[in-house]
């Protein structure tokens, strides 16, 4: 229900995004240059790398015959370096490929087939991982005999577990997805499901693992060669050159230093590219895990914010100001160059003891409006760019310092969210979580707060509250968890209770009980309720006034009974007409044709014009204002009065 509107803006390609990462560009340049030189080795004017010349041994770098000097047998270091890099790269890359193919295969099959096959394969992998892997590689080479091919094999084998585990993990999260079931229903064979459904989806994981291990594998190849187990004399690779130079490092440091520096530069380059690729391909990083959470939504300061109020001062409402008065709220999401106007010009008033329902479909801005009240819209990308939210007649919540806002959060203004499982801390007994909020706002002792928590758990109708208080969230049912969340919200006797789809994740019978509970407790405590939902039925049961939102704007508001009986905006009418009603199966469902406009491409005129049955030319020419259309009612429609006769 919380999905953002589908965006027509396309994500730039991998290469474009990679080119924005300067370190990755540096890395790719280094790697590309080294690979190019290595590939061109046969055509470069180089001396035979294995040609010995005892007379010219240990020439220093920059000597006339050898640019990087010669080693103890008089071989040209530059030539050996280039040919050696070729060998190291080839071995490193082949080992990566072999490990990737074998490991990914094992991971895919283990996750897809599951059961005993999974057990057997993964326990085998665990056994491989139980040995320190350089030791394991040494053991393999020792058993097979030192040679470059055996080193390659050994390095591939010890790296298989990394691929197998990463790919199995990624596949496990996919095999339960419904498109795999759909593929089975399409008659696909197991092999085809593995290769055409699962493999393309785990490919990013394989590429990430490859790019982060290839540098490592080149190092390991060098390590084995350094120990004399890889490349055999006279063949050069970076590791064996290092090994040769080691004995004369004091007299001729360049022989060891030159390959050493190259290994360093090459591996750093590869790792930079790998990190860049991972940042782009890893879905967890894509979802914004890298962006630091900010304690409150970025808000334009009052001086520059249109519609801001003077910081403090008497309100125009005189003696009894409304509890919460929102005027012209603009909240937007800035993603790349796109601006999504999630809430634009929202007005809302909530008096003491009021219950106001906000109804709308996904992307209509109802949740964003609710979250903006206490600056809970995530930043980035969220930003409040206009309007004012006056609380209790005096202060504008958008200009209150963060500490003041935090005193209000969960204190005088409390929230209940949709999914209690994600709202509650899974590692903390629920009673402690309630006690924690009580303590934060009422400064009670541990014991006092706990007693309060138990009392509230009792009040929200949990049986055996003292016992339930010690339970962890996963030990409670969905309905019980939501009761805990309600207890948390009400424990500090808030003036305003904001509930954002609190029953959407629950079964109908549970939903009915929770709604009753919210209603009773609200009446007892006298709190004002702001109830966000997509369900018109819930609004009718619980609220006295309703606000209908569409594409980030309020399109209609008024008393629930009046709005539902004679809706003045065609969207409200459409919404009421398309809900199936129990007991009226013959009623034709008049679907509203089309889709809401994306909020980053809002039309100039009425946002509903394209779906409206009674649209006229004037609707599209200029923004339509929200205007009074009856006692305590407003609508954003030029033809609001026409609806009365139609």
């Amino acid at each position, binding site marked *: 229900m919380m*999905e953002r*509107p*589908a965006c027509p803006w396309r994500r730039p390609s991998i290469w474009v995004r990679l080119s924005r990462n300067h370190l990755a560009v540096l890395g790719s340049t280094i790697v590309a240059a080294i690979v190019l030189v290595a590939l061109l080795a046969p055509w470069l004017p180089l001396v035979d790398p294995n040609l010995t010349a005892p007379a010219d041994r240990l020439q220093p770098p920059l000597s006339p015959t050898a640019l990087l000097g010669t080693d103890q047998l008089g071989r040209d270091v530059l030539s050996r370096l280039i040919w050696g890099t070729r060998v190291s790269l080839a071995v490193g890359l082949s080992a990566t490929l072999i490990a990737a193919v074998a490991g990914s295969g094992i991971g895919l099959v283990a996750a897809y087939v599951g059961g005993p096959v999974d057990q057997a394969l993964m326990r085998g992998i665990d056994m491989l991982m139980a040995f320190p892997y350089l030791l394991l590689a040494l053991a393999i080479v020792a058993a097979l005999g030192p040679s470059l091919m055996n080193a390659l094999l050994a390095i591939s084998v010890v790296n298989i577990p990394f691929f197998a585990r990463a790919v199995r993990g990624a596949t496990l999260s996919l095999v339960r*997805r*419904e*498109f795999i*079931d*759909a*593929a*089975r*229903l*399409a*008659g*696909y064979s197991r092999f*085809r499901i593995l290769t055409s*459904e699962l493999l*393309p*989806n785990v490919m990013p994981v394989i590429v990430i693992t490859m790019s982060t291990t290839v540098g490592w594998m080149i190092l390991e190849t060098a390590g084995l060669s350094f120990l004399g187990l890889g490349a055999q004399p006279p063949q050069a690779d970076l590791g064996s050159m290092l090994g040769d130079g080691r004995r004369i490092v004091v007299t001729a440091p360049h022989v060891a230093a030159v390959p050493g520096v190259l290994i360093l530069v090459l591996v750093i380059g590869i790792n930079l590219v790998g990190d860049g690729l991972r940042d782009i391909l890893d879905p967890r990083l894509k979802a914004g895990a890298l962006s630091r959470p900010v304690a409150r939504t970025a808000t334009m300061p009052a001086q520059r914010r249109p519609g801001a109020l003077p910081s403090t001062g008497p309100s125009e409402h005189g003696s009894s100001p409304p509890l919460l008065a929102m005027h012209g709220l603009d909240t937007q999401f800035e993603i790349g160059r796109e601006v999504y106007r999630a809430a634009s010009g929202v007005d809302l008033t909530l008096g003491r003891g009021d219950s106001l329902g906000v109804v709308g*479909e*996904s992307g209509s801005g109802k949740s964003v409006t609710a979250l903006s009240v206490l600056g809970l819209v995530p930043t980035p990308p969220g930003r409040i760019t206009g309007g004012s939210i006056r609380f209790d007649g005096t202060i504008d919540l958008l200009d209150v310092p963060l500490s003041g806002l935090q005193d209000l959060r969960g204190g005088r203004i409390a929230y209940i969210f949709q999914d209690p499982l994600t709202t509650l801390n899974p590692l903390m007994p629920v009673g402690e979580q309630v006690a924690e909020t009580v303590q934060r706002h009422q400064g009670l002792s541990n014991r006092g707060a706990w007693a309060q928590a138990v009392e509230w758990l009792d009040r929200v109708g949990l049986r055996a509250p003292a016992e339930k208080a010690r339970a962890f969230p996963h030990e409670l049912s969905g309905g019980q968890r939501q009761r805990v969340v309600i207890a948390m919200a009400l424990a500090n006797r808030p003036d305003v209770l904001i509930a954002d789809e609190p029953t959407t994740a629950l*079964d*109908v*019978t*549970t*939903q*009915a009980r929770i*709604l009753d509970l919210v209603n009773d407790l609200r009446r007892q405590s006298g709190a004002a309720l702001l109830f966000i939902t*997509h*369900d*018109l*039925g*819930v*609004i*009718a*049961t*619980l609220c006295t006034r309703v606000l209908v939102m569409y594409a980030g704007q309020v399109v209609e508001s008024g008393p*629930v*009974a009046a709005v*539902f*009986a*004679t*809706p003045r905006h065609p969207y409200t*009418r459409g*919404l*009421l*007409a*398309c*809900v*199936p*009603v*129990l*007991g*009226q*199966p013959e*009623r034709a*469902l*008049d*679907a*509203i044709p089309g*889709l809401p406009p994306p909020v980053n491409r809002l039309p100039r005129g009425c946002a509903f014009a394209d779906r409206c049955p009674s649209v006229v030319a004037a609707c599209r020419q200029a923004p339509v204002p929200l205007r009074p259309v009856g006692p305590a009612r407003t609508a954003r429609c030029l033809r609001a009065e026409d609806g009365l006769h139609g």
Partner: protein
Amino acid sequence: MVDVLVAADALVRLFGGGRTWLGRRVPVVRAVDGVSFWVRHGETLGVVGESGSGKSTLARMLVGLLAPSAGHLSVAGRPVRGLAGVEAVRFHRAVQMVFQDPVSSLNPRKTVRQILEGPVQVLLGAGRAERRDRVARILDLVGLRPEFLERYPHEFSGGQAQRIGLARALVVEPELLVLDEPVSALDVSIQAQVLTLLRDLQTRLGLTYVFISHDLAVIEALCDRVLVMRDGRVVETGPCRTVFRAPQHAYTRSLMAAVPVVRQAIRVCTP
């Protein structure tokens, strides 16, 4: 009873059971516990119940994704049991499914064309020309534009994605369509579009539906008969009209009482 398409007799599906490696018993869950029903050609059977009532398990057994632990299930006179090879292909030609989550039921790495052509190729063994032809026809039928074919699932809204899911199920022209909460992830205005489309397709193609939902009003709007499930068992069954007008079982009554409605208000505004 010649026109019965689906016949289920005392279906049972258990999960768990057996022992762990350490010899501890794994508790048995009876997800579906002795369910019997039948569906006639061209009618819609609604299955309603809350989470954990076993309705999704029942759906997965109907389409052959799960094997029943006991009981007998037959579709179009053929028993559904241990399907493999040619049998499985023949079965899936006749029985298809639409899933709850429109986005998760489409492979994110495939274009709409690949998603739709796959079943035609595998189940009907159709050549390139026939595949294109069928896909074009089905796309038109579910109300999607032809240029959508080369796009990827993430470019679609929930309602459009569910139309693609519907097209994928219908492209092989099945007789029975099992719909597992096909509209509960959609917004109300989009939900009405899909429900209207489902009604329309049923009249045009003579389809048989098994429609699973937790929403009584949706069931009542679309179904001929209803099966009310609780804890894996059927507590009440009968024609929608009778069941919803005069529910016999206390559980059905409590379900109906729990639905919040705009009843009075809506009655006023509907002509």
